[in-house]
């Protein structure tokens, strides 16, 4: 089973086309293993980016260096998955 301990999902809002281009370049860096859960559409529209824990630092530095605004939508993906699993088990028991 693949675990997602410490992985985060960032909600990113690009303010202009230049930032969108930068984010697309970021997304193409295969070694970061990031995944746009909700894709980039246009300036002002939120995009959600799943970032594995080992890539978090690099991604956040990139976003801050380019003044791209973001917030942490999911603090720890695995914590949410654990909660989901617990709920499923409980409901099955009931």
């Amino acid at each position, binding site marked *: 089973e693949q675990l997602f301990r410490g992985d985060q999902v960032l909600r990113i809002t690009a303010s202009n086309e230049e930032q969108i281009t930068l984010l697309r370049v970021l997304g193409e860096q295969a070694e970061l293993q990031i*995944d746009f859960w909700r894709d980039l559409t246009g300036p002002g529209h939120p995009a959600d980016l799943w970032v594995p824990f080992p890539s978090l630092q690099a991604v956040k530095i990139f976003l801050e260096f380019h003044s791209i605004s973001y917030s942490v939508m999911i603090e720890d993906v695995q914590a949410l998955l654990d909660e989901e699993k617990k*709920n499923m088990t409980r409901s099955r028991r009931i």
Partner: protein
Amino acid sequence: QRSISTFDFASYHTLEEIYDWMDMLVDDHPNLVSKIQIGQSYENRPLYVLKFSTGGSNRPAIWLDTGIHSREWITQATGVWTANKIVKEYGQDPSVTAILDSMDIFFEIITNPDGFVFTHSSNRLWRKTRSINAGSSCVGVDPNRNWDAGFGGSGSSSDPCSETYRGPYAHSESEVKAIVDFIRSHGNVKSVISIHSYSQMLLFPYGYKRTPAAHHQELNELAKKAVSDLAAMYGTKYAYGSVADTIYLADGTTVDWAYDNGVKYSFTFELRDTGRYGFLLPSTQIIPTATETWPALLDIMVHVLEHPY
């Protein structure tokens, strides 16, 4: 003892539980619902479609599918709730009754069963099919980039490791080919509604080109009404429009294939996003999501009934 009355619609379920529930639904409503197998997945799981029909032969039909992207669990859960709702409302709600008195509804609730099982066993965040790609260690094809509608262009990838890998050729995925063969052999499908999550949108062709569809205005008006009725329930705001105008150019998608194959009322939903959970929407959101989606679905289905072509 199996019983449909004890099924918990407010919880997420495994493939086996959902397939068992489908059998119970058919057992409980043999004159309204039947189960058809339209093919097999890559890993040889049956691809089941529920057929809602009150009789007749080759009636005009509406196709619904949920869960082509396996990790979008709210979608399959909404599918289960919706299938149950159709049964409950037939004979009660005049719109549902009118639709089913002259049309059939085909509903594929688990469109990507291999991926769905994988999300339960190994990787909750798996999106694609589970087919092996020759020459690559990466598994799976994005089944919503695999359709023969502008296949191979923008918004899809030729890299098997990408989440939007389009596959080696159009309809390479048995899950996609089964639907293509079914809709083509049926020959009288008037509407295709493919349901995804999350980003709160109701979209229609085209995605592979910016040219407006021939019926753009009608589809746009219908989408506008549907999202307005959806919002009336809990205030959830949906965007609507063509795929290309509303999100981005995306080739090889279900709705474009359907439209290019003569299915005028082709739509794709992106269900609700709370801005907090992404694909991990808690199960407490299932009923509200399904409930608010229902009037929008009904708007489309009623429009299809009232605008024969």
